[in-house]
C-alpha cells in the first residue's frame, strides 16, 4: 500500500497531513512558502486558467463573480436548500441546479464536488512534491453531522481529484484522535468543533486506545461564515445610513468582508479595532468596533450551539459534570465569547493547547496511518448522526437505524405486496429525526422488482447497510428463491455515477499534466542535490586517485544531467541521473571511510524529503 495522507477539506481552509515514518507523529505539509493552510477558494481567470488557494482568495477582490468560496456549504445540496444564502455569492447559478448546484464561472459550469476536487488536487500535488512520489489514497474528514448526500459528495470530490478515499472520518472524532494520541487519556471527552461553516459536538469515551463515540449532534449550517455575514449586514447598513448609498459592487462587498474578518480575528486578542473602507465617490468609512459590541451581535449565533450540546449529552446519557475534558476545535473557537460560553455550559475550562486549525488534519493523518500500516493500538468507533428511515403509509417515517448507532450498522426490512400480481414496491429512504417524510431529508428512491404473485405472498428482504464512512448502500434478496436482486438507487441529491465518471475523465487530461509537473520537480531537485554532492566529491583529496578516463566519464555524465534539467523531460533527467549514479559508484566507494562520503550519502538520503 502506498502512502496515504489525511486531508481536512474545510469550509474556509483545507490542509493535508501525514504521519512521519520515523517520528510516528502527525504533521501538516506546508506549501513552498511554509504555509500549512490552503484557502478553500477557486477562481477562474478570463483566459480559462483555474486558480486555487491563496491567489484565488486575492481574486475575490478583483473578480468576485468568477470566484467560489465556502463551497462546502453547498455540498450535497439542492437549490431549495441554499436559496437564502445565494445572495452572499457573486457567481451565477446555471440551469439544472435542483438536485446539484451548478456554478457558472465565465463559460465553465462546475458542481460543488468539482470545485472541492480542485482544492483536493492542490493538496494532493503539495503532498506529491513533498514526498516526490504519487499520492493516490487519502482519508478525508467531514463534519460529523453531514448527511448521506453530503458525505457522498465529498467522496465524489475525492474520486474526481484522482484520490481513492479510503475513509471519511468525522471531524470532531479526528480531532480526538490527534488529541488522545498525545495524552493517552481515558474517560469522557466532549469535542466542540465550530469551524467556518459547520458546527459539531461529539461525546467520546476513551478507553485503552478505543475511541468510542457515544453521541454526536450539530448543525451543518452554522459557523464563522454566519458571523461574517452578520457583521457584513450590520456594517453595510451603517454605510448605507452614513452615505445614503448602497455598497453594490461585488468587489467592494468582498473588500469589506475581508476587512471585517480581519477585525473579527483581531478582536480575539484586542479589546477594540478600527475598520476602514474607502467608499467610491463618497469618501472613507471608518468605525471603531469594540469586542463587547461584536459579542452582543454574535451572541445569538453562539447560543445556537448550545441546543445541540444539550441534545448530545442527553443522547449520550451523561450529565455535563461527568465530562472529563472539553476540547475546542475549529477557528471560530478562538472567539473569547465561544470559549466563555463553552466553559459555562460544561463547567470546566476547555483545552486549547492544540492548534484548532490543524488538529482535524492531524487526526485524519493518524487514521490514514492506521489504515496504511495496520497499527493496532488505536481503534475508532464512530456513529451515524441521523436516524435512517423508510416511508410508510400516509407519508410517515419508520425508523430502521436510530441516530447515534455505532457504524457500520445495518437493518433488514421485509417487503411484500398488497394487491395480486403487483410487480413492484416503491421504497423511499430518508434521514432525519422527524415523524413525517416531508420534514426529513430524502436520500433516495428505488423500486423493488417482484414477480407477479398473489398479494402478500412475495417476500423480499431489503438490507440497508451504513458503512464505516457513514454512507448507505442497499441490497435486496428474494427470500423464496434466495436470489440477490440488484437495486437501482436514484439518489435524491448529488451526482449520478455516470456524471462522476465523466468528471473524472475530464480531469484526467489535467491530472496527467499535473503528474508530469510533479515528477519534473522531483527529478530536478534530485538532480540538483546529486550534482552538488558530485562536484563536492570531485575536489576531495581521494578523488585525485581517479583514473583520468573515469574522471572524464563522470564529467561527461554531469554535463549530460545539466543538459537534461532544462528540457522539462523528467524521464530523461531520471535516466541520466541513473547514469551518474553508476559513474560515481567507484568514487563513492573510494570515499567510503571519509566524512565527505557521509555528506554525499547524506545528500542522497535527504532527497526523500525534498
Amino acid at each position, binding site marked *: 500500500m502506498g502512502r496515504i495522507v489525511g486531508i481536512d477539506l474545510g469550509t474556509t481552509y483545507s490542509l493535508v497531513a501525514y504521519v512521519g515514518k520515523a517520528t510516528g507523529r502527525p504533521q501538516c505539509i506546508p506549501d513552498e512558502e511554509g504555509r500549512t493552510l490552503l484557502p478553500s477558494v477557486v477562481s477562474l481567470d478570463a483566459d480559462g486558467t483555474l486558480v486555487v488557494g491563496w491567489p484565488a482568495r486575492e481574486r475575490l477582490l478583483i473578480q468576485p463573480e468568477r470566484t467560489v468560496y465556502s463551497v462546502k456549504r453547498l455540498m450535497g445540496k439542492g437549490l431549495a436548500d441554499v436559496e437564502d444564502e445565494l445572495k452572499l455569492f457573486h457567481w451565477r447559478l446555471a440551469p439544472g441546479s435542483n438536485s446539484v448546484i451548478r456554478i457558472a464561472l465565465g463559460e465553465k459550469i462546475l458542481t460543488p464536488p468539482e470545485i472541492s476536487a480542485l482544492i483536493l488536487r492542490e493538496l494532493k500535488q503539495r503532498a506529491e512534491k513533498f514526498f516526490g512520489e504519487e499520492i493516490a489514497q487519502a482519508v478525508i474528514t467531514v463534519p460529523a453531522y453531514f448527511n448521506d448526500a453530503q458525505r457522498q459528495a465529498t467522496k465524489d470530490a475525492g474520486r474526481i481529484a484522482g484520490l481513492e478515499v479510503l475513509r471519511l472520518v468525522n471531524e470532531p472524532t479526528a480531532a480526538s484522535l490527534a488529541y488522545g494520541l498525545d495524552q493517552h487519556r481515558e474517560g469522557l471527552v466532549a469535542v466542540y468543533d465550530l469551524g467556518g461553516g459547520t458546527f459539531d459536538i461529539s461525546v467520546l469515551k476513551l478507553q485503552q486506545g478505543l475511541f468510542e463515540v457515544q453521541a454526536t449532534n450539530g448543525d451543518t449550517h452554522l459557523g464563522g461564515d454566519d458571523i461574517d455575514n452578520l457583521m457584513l449586514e450590520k456594517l453595510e447598513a451603517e454605510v448605507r445610513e452614513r452615505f445614503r448609498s448602497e455598497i453594490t459592487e461585488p468587489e467592494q462587498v468582498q473588500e469589506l468582508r475581508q476587512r471585517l474578518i480581519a477585525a473579527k480575528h483581531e478582536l480575539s486578542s484586542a479589546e477594540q479595532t478600527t475598520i476602514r473602507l474607502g467608499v467610491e465617490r463618497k469618501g472613507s468609512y471608518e468605525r471603531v468596533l469594540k469586542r463587547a459590541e461584536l459579542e452582543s451581535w454574535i451572541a445569538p449565533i453562539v447560543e445556537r450551539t448550545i441546543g445541540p450540546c444539550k441534545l448530545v449529552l442527553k443522547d449520550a446519557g451523561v450529565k455535563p459534570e461527568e465530562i472529563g475534558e472539553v476540547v475546542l476545535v475549529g477557528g471560530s473557537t478562538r472567539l473569547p465569547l465561544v470559549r466563555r460560553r463553552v466553559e459555562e455550559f460544561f463547567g470546566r475550562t476547555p483545552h486549547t493547547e492544540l492548534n484548532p486549525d490543524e488538529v482535524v488534519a492531524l487526526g485524519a493523518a493518524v487514521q490514514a496511518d492506521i489504515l496504511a500500516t495496520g497499527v493496532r493500538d488505536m481503534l*475508532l468507533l464512530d456513529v451515524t448522526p441521523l436516524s435512517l428511515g423508510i416511508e410508510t403509509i400516509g407519508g410517515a417515517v419508520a425508523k430502521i437505524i436510530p441516530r447515534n448507532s*455505532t*457504524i*457500520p450498522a445495518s437493518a433488514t426490512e421485509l417487503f411484500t405486496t398488497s394487491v395480486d400480481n403487483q410487480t413492484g414496491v416503491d421504497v423511499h429512504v430518508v434521514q432525519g429525526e422527524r415523524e413525517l417524510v416531508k420534514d426529513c431529508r430524502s*436520500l433516495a428512491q428505488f423500486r423493488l422488482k417482484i414477480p407477479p404473485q398473489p398479494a402478500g405472498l412475495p417476500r423480499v428482504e431489503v438490507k440497508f447497510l*451504513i458503512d464505516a464512512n457513514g454512507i*448507505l448502500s442497499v441490497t435486496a*434478496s428474494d427470500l423464496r428463491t434466495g436470489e440477490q436482486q440488484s437495486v437501482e438507487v436514484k439518489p435524491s441529491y448529488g451526482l449520478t455515477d455516470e456524471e462522476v465518471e465523466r468528471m473524472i475523465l475530464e480531469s484526467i487530461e489535467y491530472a496527467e499534466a499535473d503528474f508530469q509537473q510533479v515528477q519534473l520537480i522531483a527529478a530536478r531537485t534530485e538532480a540538483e542535490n546529486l550534482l552538488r554532492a558530485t562536484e563536492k566529491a570531485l575536489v576531495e583529496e581521494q578523488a585525485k586517485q581517479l583514473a583520468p578516463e573515469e574522471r572524464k566519464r563522470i564529467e561527461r555524465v554531469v554535463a549530460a544531467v545539466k543538459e537534461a534539467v532544462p528540457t522539462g523531460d523528467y524521464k530523461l533527467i531520471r535516466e541520466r541521473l541513473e547514469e551518474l549514479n553508476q559513474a560515481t559508484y567507484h568514487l563513492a566507494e573510494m570515499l567510503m571511510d571519509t566524512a565527505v562520503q557521509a555528506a554525499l550519502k547524506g545528500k542522497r538520503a535527504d532527497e526523500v524529503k525534498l
Partner: protein
Amino acid sequence: MTESTASAKTTAARACWDCGAPATGEHFCPSCSKIQPQPPHQDYFAFFALPRKLALDRQQLEQKFHQLSWKLHPDNFSTATPYERDLSLEKAAVLNDAYRTLRDPVARVEYLLGLEGIRREGEIKQQAPPELLEEVFELNEHLEELRAAKRAGTDRRELDDLRHRLEAARREFEGKLEAVDAELSACFAEWDALLDSNPDGAARKQTMEKMSEVLNRHSYLRNLVRNVTEELEA
C-alpha cells in the same frame, strides 16, 4: 447513498473458505484464523455466543463488544482482500446491531419475544393499561391545557402553575415506570431460571406472554413520561 448489487456470500458455510477446515460457526476459522462469513439469520445472542437469557451483565457485554470490535472492525482489514473486507463490514455491522439491541433491557426483551415468535418486532400495543385509565386521562388533560395556554400566551403565573401540576404527575408516572421496571426484572429472572430447567413449550409460552404484557405497559408509560418531559422542556 451508493448502489451495491452484491454483498458477501450469505449462505451457511460448511467449511472455511480459505483452508477448507470444517466450519465451527465461530467468527474466525480456528485452524487458519481467517474471518468467516456471517451465518444468515444468526441471532444476536448467538453472535455473542450467549444463551438466550435476559439478565445480562451490561459491563460484561460491553467488554465482549469491545473485544470483538478490535477484531472485526473494517480498519483491521484495510490491507486484506476485497472478500475479507466485505466479510468484516458485514460482521462489524451485525456486531453493532447486536450490541445496540442487547444492551438495552427493553430492546433486548422485545427482540427475544420476536425471536421466539411471541410478537413482531416494533409491535407495541398503544393502549392505556385499564388500571391507569383515569390518571392517564387526567394527565392528558393537563398536557392539553399547557399546550393551549402556551398557544394563547397565558401569563407566567398560570403557566408555572400548570407546569407544577404536570411535574407532579410526571413524578407519579415515573414511580409507576420504576415499578414496571422491577416487574420486568422479575420476569427476566423467571425466564432465565426456566431456561435452565429445560421447560416444555407451554411453560415458555406462558412466561413470554406475561413478559409481553409487562412490556406493553412499560412502553406505554415510557412514552407517556417522554411526552410530558418534552412538553415541559419545550
